[in-house]
């Protein structure tokens, strides 16, 4: 009997251990696959061509700079929308709204996150883009801004949901202490609750940004996909082509193991590295802050 229990214990802990490690295994397998398919690019396309300004793969023009700047621009735009709105909503839900409003609003916001991105793309093409063209007097409504607005909308539920959880987890004693010291409600939120929940909020922002940079369908439908180099925020009002839309639009066309195929994987690698960079920076910041907080407390 006891032996049987030991055996089961052994199996279950091993299984759990395996699921823990499997994430690492899968990520590294994916990364090695990307490297395997993407690195031949460096042998086939001279670096000068790869980082040039013209993307026109059917004539072997593989300049990926416009695609990188396109993705960054749309993502930064989405972040500028999603972060203030998302954190604002989270603060309202966690700190200000009565309990019943929170219980009603939070599931609704999360439902917004479940909207298929193709549906958002339709709304973008048929409603948002004509409206933007007319109100801002642009040549066309298929711009980076249109993509940013929709991606912001996609990222907001993620940001709200996770940062609200983090704010909610801040012990009540922190707020009580701040209020007892004579801080106003706003000072309590801004100086005490939000900093205390910082790591959770940062995770929320990170996941939101990650969601935006990887989003494909909506962007492909509304940003116009013109591979023009974006040099500043003013380019939000012109069309851009993102890395994800490029891969999605062109992957079906390429023959296996051709140069174009390798370049598309190379773009996937760049995308992966950018996500990795965002993640590592964010966790580094969280880590440093924790250490400081520990120092102060000790």
């Amino acid at each position, binding site marked *: 009997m006891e032996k049987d229990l030991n055996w089961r214990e052994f199996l279950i802990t091993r299984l759990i251990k395996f699921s823990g490690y499997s994430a690492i295994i899968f990520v590294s397998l994916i990364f090695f696959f990307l490297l395997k398919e993407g690195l031949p690019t460096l042998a086939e396309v001279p670096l000068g061509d790869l980082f040039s*300004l*013209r993307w*026109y*793969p*059917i*004539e072997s*023009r593989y300049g990926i700079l*416009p695609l990188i700047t396109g993705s960054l621009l749309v993502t930064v735009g989405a972040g500028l929308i999603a972060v203030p709105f998302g954190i604002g909503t989270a603060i309202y839900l966690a700190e200000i709204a009565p309990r019943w409003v929170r219980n009603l609003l939070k599931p609704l916001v999360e439902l917004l996150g479940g909207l298929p991105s193709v549906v958002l793309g339709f709304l973008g*093409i*048929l409603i948002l883009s*004509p409206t933007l*063209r007319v109100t801002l007097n642009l*040549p*066309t*409504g*298929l711009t980076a801004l249109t993509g940013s607005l929709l991606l912001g909308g996609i990222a907001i539920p993620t940001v709200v949901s996770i940062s609200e959880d983090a704010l909610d987890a801040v012990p009540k004693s922190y707020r009580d202490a701040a209020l007892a010291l004579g801080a106003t409600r706003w000072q309590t939120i801004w100086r005490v609750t939000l900093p205390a929940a910082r790591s959770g909020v940062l995770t929320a922002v990170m996941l939101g940004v990650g969601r935006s940079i990887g989003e494909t369908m909506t962007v*492909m*439908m509304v940003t*116009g*996909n*013109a*591979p*023009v180099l974006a040099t500043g925020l003013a380019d939000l009002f*012109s*069309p851009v*082509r993102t890395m994800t839309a490029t891969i999605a*639009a*062109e992957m*079906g*066309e*390429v*023959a*296996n193991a*051709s140069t174009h195929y390798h370049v598309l994987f190379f773009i996937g690698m760049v995308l992966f590295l950018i996500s990795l960079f965002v993640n590592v920076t964010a966790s580094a910041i969280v880590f440093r802050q924790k250490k400081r907080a520990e120092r102060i407390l000790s």
Partner: protein
Amino acid sequence: MKRILLFTFLLIFLASCSAGGEGAADSQPQTYIENKGSDTIVNLALAWAEQYQTDHPDIRLSVTGGGSGTGIASLVNGTVDIANASRQIKQKEIELASEKGILPVEHIIARDAIAVIVNPENPVTELTLQQISDIYSGVYTNWSEVGGEDRPIVRLSRETNSGTHVYFLETVLRLGDKESTTLFSTNTLLLPSSEGIIVEVRQNPNAIGYDGLGYVPHDLKVIAIAPEVGDDYILPSVETVNSGTYPIARDLYMYTNGEPTGVVAEYLAWIMSAEAQEIVRKLGFVPIN
């Protein structure tokens, strides 16, 4: 007596019913034909497939779009029986195919005119080929330069995996000159579908786009085109394509691996028949004979 007779009839009727049903399922193993490629051809291929399946219930045709490049890539990768293409196969693709032991064989199945379309609010009604080329390559950036209003030109094109894109590049932008290296202006919007182009042209008076004639709805304005300055401006139609006066018309193709055999050969032979070519005419394309 009468009741017994009726009962017997009913029994016989039921028996024959079930026997017929089983017989059909047993005696006709289904044959699948995979057909993929050009978005220009996809509606035509679907209409053909529907008609052909009604006439030959033992054959199942699966038709998908994705672009000519996609279709040919699938043929090269060996995943389809027939690739649809609105452009001829490229030398590079033939080489890739032969590396994989695949020999693409070409079949011309219909003809198509490319219509250049603008928003009905745009007063421009006719352009020369040279003007269209200059609009797309970025020489002209304002409609007033080609006789229109003072509006920026928004150029729309299909993605690069579209056969229509490649055809337009070769025939219009480069005016058929093989040595030319003219490219689309970088700020040309590359839209993933015909529908995307039509939606944008419908709502944006700055836009110019192009698409297969069979896909252009009646509420958009089709531009009359002159091959050279001084020539007549011609609108695309079955007549002007067949007489060769409309300058941007092309053949549509199906590619098979080697000379087709069996059901694929029968299907392709049917496509050349008068019945199938009548479907071509109904969908706004131009029949081959």
